[in-house]
C-alpha cells in the first residue's frame, strides 16, 4: 500500500540571485507498513488553462540547485519511513549569481522506491508518487510588475429567460511578463447603473507568459442564478488596482420568455376550450 501525505502542497518564493533558502516539508506514512521512499525535483510547464502541468522531458536549470539539508538524507537517495510515522524533509534551494531574472517552476516529488521483484507470473508493479509545486520568481524586486491582458470575457447565453438555467461568465487572462501573479478581482453585474451582484474571483496563479481561466470563489464556474428581472444588464470584469489590468465589460439581456410562453399556452387552452364549446351542436 502507498498512503502518503505531503505538506505543504505548494510553495511560492521571490528570490534574488545568489540566495539560499530552505523549506521544510512533512511526509507522513499513513499506512500500517513501513515504506521505502525517494525524492526528486522535476521542472514542469503549464498545460491547459486550469492549473494543470506537464513534465515533458525538461532539463533542469543549472543555476538553481536543490538538495536536502537533513543530516541523514540526500536528495535522490532512498530512505525508509516507519509505519504511521512522519519525517521532515528540509529542501535547500540555491540560486547562483548568474541566474537569469525570470520564473522557474518545479515539483518536489516523494515517491515509492521499490525495485521490481522477480515474479513467476505476469505482473505489473504500481508505484505511487506525490508532488508539491515550487514556484520561484528570481527578481531584484520584491513585487515584480504585472502586465496582463484579458483574452476573453464572455457571457453565455447572451439572451436569457428570467427563470430556468443560470447565466455563466467565462474569462481568461494572459500574463505578458516573466513572473507569475495571482488573480484578484470581481465580476460586477449591473442593471440601470445599479449593482445587482458581485462575484469574487478566485486567487489563481497565472504563470509567466501563459494564460489562465478565471474561476469564482465558492463556485467551479462563475454563475448568476435565476430568477432575474427582465432588462439589459452589464457584466464588468475588474481586477484589483495593484494588478493594473484594464477592466472589460459585456452585455446580456434577460427576457420574460417563459412567462410569455406560459401565458400564450393558457390563452391557447382557453381558445381551444371556448371553440369546442361553441362548435358543440345543440341537442
Amino acid at each position, binding site marked *: *500500500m502507498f498512503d*502518503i501525505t505531503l505538506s*505543504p502542497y505548494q510553495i511560492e518564493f521571490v528570490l534574488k540571485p545568489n540566495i539560499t533558502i530552505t523549506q521544510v516539508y512533512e511526509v507522513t506514512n499513513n499506512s500500517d507498513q513501513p515504506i521505502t521512499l525517494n525524492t526528486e525535483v522535476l521542472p514542469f510547464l503549464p498545460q491547459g488553462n486550469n492549473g494543470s502541468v506537464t513534465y515533458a522531458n525538461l532539463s533542469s536549470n543549472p543555476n538553481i540547485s536543490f538538495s536536502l*539539508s537533513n543530516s541523514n538524507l540526500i536528495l535522490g537517495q532512498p530512505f525508509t519511513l516507519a509505519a504511521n510515522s512522519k519525517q521532515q524533509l528540509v529542501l535547500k534551494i540555491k540560486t547562483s549569481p548568474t541566474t537569469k531574472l525570470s520564473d522557474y517552476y518545479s515539483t518536489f516529488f516523494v515517491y515509492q522506491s521499490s525495485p521490481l521483484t522477480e515474479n513467476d507470473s*505476469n505482473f*505489473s*508493479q504500481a508505484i505511487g508518487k*506525490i508532488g508539491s509545486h515550487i514556484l520561484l520568481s528570481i527578481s531584484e524586486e*520584491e513585487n515584480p510588475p504585472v502586465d496582463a491582458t484579458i483574452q476573453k470575457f464572455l457571457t453565455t447565453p447572451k439572451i436569457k429567460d428570467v427563470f430556468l438555467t443560470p447565466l455563466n461568465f467565462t474569462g481568461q487572462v494572459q500574463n505578458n511578463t516573466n513572473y507569475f501573479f495571482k488573480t484578484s478581482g470581481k465580476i460586477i453585474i449591473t442593471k440601470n447603473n445599479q449593482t445587482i451582484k458581485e462575484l469574487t474571483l478566485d*486567487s489563481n496563479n497565472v504563470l509567466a507568459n501563459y494564460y489562465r481561466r478565471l474561476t469564482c470563489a465558492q463556485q467551479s464556474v462563475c454563475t448568476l442564478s435565476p430568477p432575474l428581472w427582465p432588462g439589459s444588464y452589464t457584466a464588468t470584469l475588474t481586477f484589483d488596482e495593484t494588478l493594473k489590468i484594464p477592466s472589460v465589460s459585456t452585455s446580456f439581456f434577460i427576457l420574460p420568455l417563459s412567462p410569455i410562453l406560459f401565458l400564450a399556452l393558457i390563452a391557447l387552452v382557453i381558445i381551444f376550450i371556448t371553440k369546442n364549446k361553441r362548435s358543440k351542436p345543440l341537442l
Partner: protein
Amino acid sequence: MTLNKSFIFIFVLLFFFLSKKINAQTFTSPNYQIEFGNFNMTGGKKTSTTYTLTDTVGQNAPGKYTNTGYTVKAGFQYIYDLYQSFSFKIDDLDLNFGALVPQVGSTQSNIITITTPSAHGYDILASENHPLLAKSATIPDTTCDSGTCDQSTSGVWTEITTYGFGFNATGINSSGVATNIGTSNFFTNNTYYRQFASVKDNETPQVFMSESQPAKNRSAKITYKINISPNQSAGNYENAINLIAVPKY
C-alpha cells in the same frame, strides 16, 4: 547589612517563584538544521463561531527584501490539519495477472484515493516504465477496438480479438459505486480504455483523473487489462506503473 542580605535573599526567591515560563523557538533537531529560520512571537489558527484566522506574528523584517534577498508568497505558514495537506493512497501495488489465456481478457484493479486542500484541485497522471516485457517479447499497448486509442485518447475495448495492455479509471464513492467524478473527461464508461504513456518511448505522463476544486477522499477504481493473441510468446511479462498525484498550481 543583615537587612540587605535578607532583602536580596527574598528578592532572589521571588524572582524564581514568580517568573513566568517562556517557550523559546528551536531551530534544530537530530534530523535537520534550518539555516534561515523565522523567529516568531506566535502563529497559528484562531477560530470562533464566525471566523477563522491564520497568522504569524513577529516575522523578522517582513518585506525587507533588500536585506533578506527573498520573500515568501505562499508556503510559509505551517499546515495545521490533515485536510490542509495533500494525500494520495493506492490500496494495492501488486497487480498479479496470473497465467494469461489467449483471447480471454485478464484484469486486475486497485483503488486510488486523493485528498487535496488546493483551491484549484488536482491531477493524477500515469505512465509505465515500458510496455509489458518478458525477456525479448512484449505485449504491446492496446489501440482499442477502433485501433485509434493511445495514451491521451480512450476508446472502447470489448472485442476478444483486440490485443494489448491498457487501463480504465472510474470515479467511485465510498461504497464503491461508480460516480465518474474526476474521470468522466477521460473515460466515458468502464468499457473505455487507453494506453499508459511509455517512459522508454519518451512519452510524457498523461492525466487520467482531474478536478478543479478541493477534494476530500475522492476515489477511483483503476482496471488494468491484458488480452493476448494465440501467437503471443510464452513468458512472464512485467512492467512498472507510475501513478503520480500533483495539485493544480
